[in-house]
């Protein structure tokens, strides 16, 4: 048996270790190395969820109700994946709005309302205090058990000054004050406290698993053995899902714990306020459930082991964890288990107390102080000191109250359900919070009435029965209902008896709460301030970067007043720093102006919110500025503007991408245009050059003709030449104009049904003479008899003539014209046995003045425009023109589609494209 002194020294030694860890972490953080900033510490700190109640109580519950104890761990595990949606949003909102507690969160969401914050704070106190006190009780009991090996819960009979629990409570209060109120900003993170809690989570897990392994493998021969022995004693009913209320009980317990794990003040403190990085949620989402799984693995084996080992009724199942090691004379193991339970209790007490003290100071006392003008003026200049003092005092008061509750009251209550009753109290905040972050319409009055009604019902259905049991109230109330009305029986409202006591309370309080919240919200109008907050909360991910400009505020603030206000809370140095910070972030200078702009006012309010809570900050800021109430329409307008700005920004980015694309395209087009321009220049220069040739002849001969003594024969010859050259000139001009019309798409075809055979023969007719003169052997092969086609007769003739005349210029002595039908197309080919077109020039030969490319050597005869015009004509008819060499003959060929109409319909669209493409 361990001596009293040994246990006490280990207990305080453990406490000292916590101090050391906290102190070391704080020091490390102040040197810039934040140990807590990783997902593992974050997940461990969330494990503050597992208190002494779970440490000892789970086994107790398992011993009576079997697997049912798991329900409150299954809920959090099930809901963990949803953290990414809910928790991340709450974290973002809280960080951005400098929210420091759950009361502040609700108050801030519903227009920074004082009443709501106060109500939530009071209810938290009422709900959590008994919970805290059972932690103290657990520690005290385990201490006694360890000391006296007394396994039945005995009445507490020492005066407080002899009670170890009292000194432990004070030690915890001291720790909490030291590591929980170092900074005036309630939103500031408590590095040391977080690290200590994380350590405690590891410690309690290790301790519990150790005792689990001991019971399972040393007392018994593994899981199978325990279950077999338990089965022999008729304990099978504990192995499966059961309970008098069946599966619905599981469901409600899971739902309840889902809400608790998010909104219990200590969970909110650890999960939201102490969160370093939203991304840590990623890992915590599975680490935390894994932790819950680990710590619960041995619960049932220990419970069954205890039931098998101890005769029924001799040992309270809640103490099996300690009783088993003691029964097997494992004193040191018992000490470890005791310290594990101690760690579970202390972490809960510390974190809950910090959270509660923040609420008390920021949402209860400060608003009262600030609303009262006399008090405000009196304390104006030492507010920052007062805030800290309030927090420190309230920490001591809360822990002391918990101790008193434990000492004086808790003994009279059945403690089994205090934890769950606390959970139900906290669950009342769920509608206001979840509604608040997803439903803009959720209104202050709805939240207030919902929470208050929920609490009244909570009190009536869950607390009253315990008071009856404790003897404070007449038992008739429980049996006959209020005023003797059976329907008002606290444990069976309207005759609902199917549910268990806790589930019944949860169902009624929460249902009424939700209904009131929704209905009243639907029928009430929000003030502009409230609506502003609602929009910012619900759409936080849109506003978190532009928050100061999203909070709508109209009025005037005198800068020195605002500075003095900040000064009161932050001190000279810090005020300078934050103002500098502001001007860096917004790019505005502050120093020179006498009036603060709205963004600075909002920024200041947020800073103060972090220190004294949103409602108090609102009051403080309102006292130094002259505000004008602004209309809802204005709020909506400005909010829309910020939102639009953001989406505009996005749109701008998109636009700039598109612009770049467009500018690339433009550059390409510009390049094409430049090229076209060059070609046009070249074209003009070539045209003028071509024109100079006939003009030169005309001029030269005209001057010669001026001489009177010219023989008549010469005169006539020279005049003929002049006429010839003038015709050449006219032809050239016509062709240039022709080409220009085709190029610009203005040329129109004069389409008529034409017999192609006759057209070809007529064209050839005009060339026969020339072929004869040049001694060229000409052949014609027509592969069809009669072919009526819709074409521009003159233009097609022009093309054929051009091809034949070109051929006549190059042919040595043979030209063949072949025409036939193939695949719904008309083919016409002109072969000559001339020197041919070099392969590399073939693609360019249909460009105007092709010969101009080789600047100085030129085609023997012709303007150089004929083929270019031919190409245009054929394309206008929807056909193709080309050149190739076949068995030593050069062949110019064009192909016309037989369904000409179809192609002609689309031609006008294509013409423009060709216009740019072909050059």
């Amino acid at each position: 048996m361990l001596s009293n002194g040994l246990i006490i020294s280990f207990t305080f030694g453990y406490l000292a270790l916590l101090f050391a860890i906290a102190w070391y972490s704080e020091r490390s953080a102040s040197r810039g190395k934040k140990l807590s900033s990783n997902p593992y510490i974050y997940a461990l700190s969330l494990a503050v969820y597992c208190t002494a109640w779970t440490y000892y109580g789970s086994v107790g519950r398992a011993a009576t109700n079997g697997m049912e104890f798991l329900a409150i761990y299954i809920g959090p595990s099930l809901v963990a994946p949803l953290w990414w949606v809910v928790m991340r949003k709450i974290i973002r909102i809280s960080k951005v709005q400098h929210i420091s507690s759950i009361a502040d969160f609700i108050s801030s969401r519903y227009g920074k309302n004082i009443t709501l914050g106060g109500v939530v704070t009071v209810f938290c106190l009422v709900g959590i205090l008994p919970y805290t006190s059972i932690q103290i009780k657990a520690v005290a009991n385990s201490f006694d058990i360890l000391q006296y090996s007394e396994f039945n819960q005995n009445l507490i009979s020492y005066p407080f000054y002899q009670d170890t629990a009292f000194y432990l409570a004070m030690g915890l209060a001291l720790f909490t004050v030291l590591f929980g109120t170092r900074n005036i900003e309630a939103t500031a993170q408590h590095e040391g406290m977080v690290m200590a809690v994380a350590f405690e989570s590891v410690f309690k897990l290790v301790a519990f698993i150790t005792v689990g392994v001991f019971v399972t493998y040393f007392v018994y021969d593994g899981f199978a053995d325990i279950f077999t022995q338990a089965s022999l004693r008729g304990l099978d009913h504990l192995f499966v899902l059961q309970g008098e209320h069946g599966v619905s009980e599981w469901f409600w317990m899971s739902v309840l714990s889902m809400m608790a794990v998010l909104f219990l003040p200590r969970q909110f403190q650890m999960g939201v306020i102490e969160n370093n990085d939203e991304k840590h949620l990623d890992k915590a989402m599975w680490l935390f459930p894994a932790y819950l799984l680990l710590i619960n693995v041995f619960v049932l084996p220990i419970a069954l082991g205890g039931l098998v080992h101890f005769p029924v009724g001799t040992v309270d199942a809640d103490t099996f964890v300690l009783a088993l090691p003691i029964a097997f004379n494992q004193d040191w193991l018992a000490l470890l288990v005791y310290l594990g339970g101690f760690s579970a209790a202390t972490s809960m007490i510390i974190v809950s107390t910090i959270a509660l003290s923040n609420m008390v100071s920021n949402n209860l006392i400060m608003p009262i102080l600030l609303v009262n003008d006399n008090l405000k003026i009196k304390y104006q200049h030492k507010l920052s000191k007062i805030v800290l003092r309030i927090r420190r005092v309230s920490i001591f008061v809360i822990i002391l109250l918990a101790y008193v509750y434990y000492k004086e009251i808790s003994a009279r209550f059945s403690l089994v359900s205090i934890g769950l009753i606390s959970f139900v109290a906290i669950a009342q905040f769920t509608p206001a919070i979840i509604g608040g972050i997803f439903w803009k319409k959720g209104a202050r009055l709805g939240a207030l009435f919902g929470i208050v009604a929920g609490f009244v019902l909570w009190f009536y259905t869950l607390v009253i029965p315990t008071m009856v049991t404790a003897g404070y109230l007449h038992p008739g109330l429980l049996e006959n209902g209020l005023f003797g009305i059976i329907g008002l029986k606290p444990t069976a409202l309207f005759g609902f008896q199917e549910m268990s006591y806790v589930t019944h309370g949860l169902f009624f309080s929460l249902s009424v709460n939700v209904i009131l919240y929704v209905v009243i919200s639907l029928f009430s109008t929000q003030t502009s301030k409230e609506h502003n907050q609602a929009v910012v909360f619900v759409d936080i991910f849109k506003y978190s970067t532009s928050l100061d400009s999203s909070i709508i505020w109209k009025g005037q603030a005198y800068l020195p007043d605002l500075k003095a206000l900040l000064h009161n809370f932050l001190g000279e140095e810090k005020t300078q720093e934050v103002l500098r910070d502001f001007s860096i972030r917004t790019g505005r200078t502050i120093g020179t102006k006498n009036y603060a702009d709205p963004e600075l006012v909002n920024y200041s309010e947020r800073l103060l919110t972090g220190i004294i809570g949103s409602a108090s900050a609102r009051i403080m800021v309102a006292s130094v500025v002259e505000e004008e109430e602004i209309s809802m329409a204005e709020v909506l307008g400005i909010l829309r503007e910020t939102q639009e700005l953001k989406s505009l920004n996005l749109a701008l980015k998109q636009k700039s991408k598109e612009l770049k694309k467009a500018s690339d395209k433009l550059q390409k087009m510009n390049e094409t245009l430049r090229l076209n321009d060059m070609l046009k220049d070249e074209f003009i220069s070539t045209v003028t050059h071509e024109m100079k040739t006939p003009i030169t002849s005309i001029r030269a001969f005209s001057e010669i003709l001026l001489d009177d003594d010219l023989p008549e024969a010469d005169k006539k010859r020279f005049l003929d030449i002049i006429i010839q050259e003038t015709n050449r000139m006219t032809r050239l001009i016509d062709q240039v104009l022709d080409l220009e019309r085709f190029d610009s798409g203005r040329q129109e075809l004069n389409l008529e049904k034409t017999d192609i055979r006759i057209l070809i023969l007529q064209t050839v007719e005009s060339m026969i003479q020339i072929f004869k003169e040049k001694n060229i052997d000409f052949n014609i092969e027509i592969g069809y008899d009669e072919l009526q086609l819709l074409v521009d007769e003159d233009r097609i003739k022009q093309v054929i003539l051009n091809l034949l005349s070109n051929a006549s210029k190059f042919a040595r002595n043979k030209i063949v014209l072949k025409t036939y039908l193939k695949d719904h197309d008309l083919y016409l080919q002109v072969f000559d046995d001339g020197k041919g077109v070099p392969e590399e020039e073939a693609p360019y030969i249909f460009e105007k003045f092709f010969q101009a490319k080789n600047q100085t050597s030129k085609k023997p005869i012709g303007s150089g425009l004929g083929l270019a015009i031919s190409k245009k004509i054929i394309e206008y008819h929807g056909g193709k023109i080309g050149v190739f060499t076949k068995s030593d003959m050069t062949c110019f060929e064009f192909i016309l589609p037989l369904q000409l109409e179809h192609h002609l319909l689309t031609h006008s669209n294509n013409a423009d494209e060709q216009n740019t493409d072909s050059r």
Partner: protein
Amino acid sequence: MNKILIVDDEPNILLSLEFLFKKEGFRVFIARDGEEAMGIIKENHPELVILDIMMPKVDGYEVCRHIKENIEGVKVVFLTAKSKQQDVQKGMNLGADLYLTKPFSNKDLVSKVKSLMN
């Protein structure tokens, strides 16, 4: 005694120039392209060559370079439609004595050619 060669691929221009200079008392040779021109120069040693630039086979620049590199004392007058500054520059750089553009004034051409030959 005043032998000149006129080179141009345009028959009508060639005809007018031949008529013009013969009337002025020159002994006129004519060529329709650069290749032909070089043959005539080699055979008949004209004192002055009136040269078009854009011609089939061998262009005027080529003929000019050939003359200036191989034969002493033959004057070259470009007579061409190419009137751009860089064309003129190119012609003069090849050592041409005169660069005239089409269309031209008969009198002007004759007097310039005469003054070159004295």
